[in-house]
């Protein structure tokens, strides 16, 4: 069946082969200019997006809303007072 079907089609014409050779010869001129792989581009875009989100969260009241400020505990206040008595480090 396969051979009979093949006989039902004309043989590959020389014009088809010639065109194929011409296109293949031109391929180096038409090399794709995409130099950065898609994954790298996606990672860069994600990093920029996350950076933008971080800046936006810092400048808005979002972080204060999520983590409301509380007065320091007495232990923390004592610690600050104790640290104030330490001698300053010489530069």
């Amino acid at each position, binding site marked *: 069946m396969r051979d009979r079907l093949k006989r*039902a*089609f004309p043989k590959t014409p020389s014009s088809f082969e010639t065109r*194929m050779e011409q*296109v293949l010869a031109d391929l180096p001129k038409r090399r794709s200019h995409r130099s950065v792989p898609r994954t790298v581009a996606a990672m860069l875009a994600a990093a920029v997006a996350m950076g933008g989100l971080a800046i936006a969260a810092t400048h808005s009241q979002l972080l204060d809303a999520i983590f409301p400020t509380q007065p320091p505990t007495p232990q923390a206040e004592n610690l600050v007072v104790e640290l104030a008595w330490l001698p300053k480090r010489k530069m």
Partner: protein
Amino acid sequence: MWWRMDEQQFSKSVFEAKNKLFRISYSILHNEQDCADALQEALLRAWQHSGKLRDERYFDTWLVRILINESKRLRASRQRRSEWPAAPECAAEDIGLHDALMELDERYRLPIVLHSMEGYQLEEIAYLLRVPVGTVKSRMHTGRSRLKTILETEE
């Protein structure tokens, strides 16, 4: 794993598939000149997008799919502009089967050509034609029976 085909690999694979590419394109366009035009567009498109292909084992099927799309696009463009040229006299050895095949609707002809002549599996044909496997099976069945009827009528 990132894999990219170089020019030599690409050219070698295309040359190996030369006759098959012609027959598949011809089964859609029925015209040698148009087949060359469709092939040119398909090769350029395949080369420009070759970075998308992750596994060279699928190059052949991938290229055939692009060629089928380009052949259909060219045919649609010609039909819109009413530029469909008269088919030149065919040089096939088995003219009777050639005419019967071309008389068959394309949706039945293509699965027969791809399976019975080019040896593609049903799943591959489903991918190539963008239809479910069940549709491929039913089209092949209908196509074979219609082809048989056409051949019997001509005899």
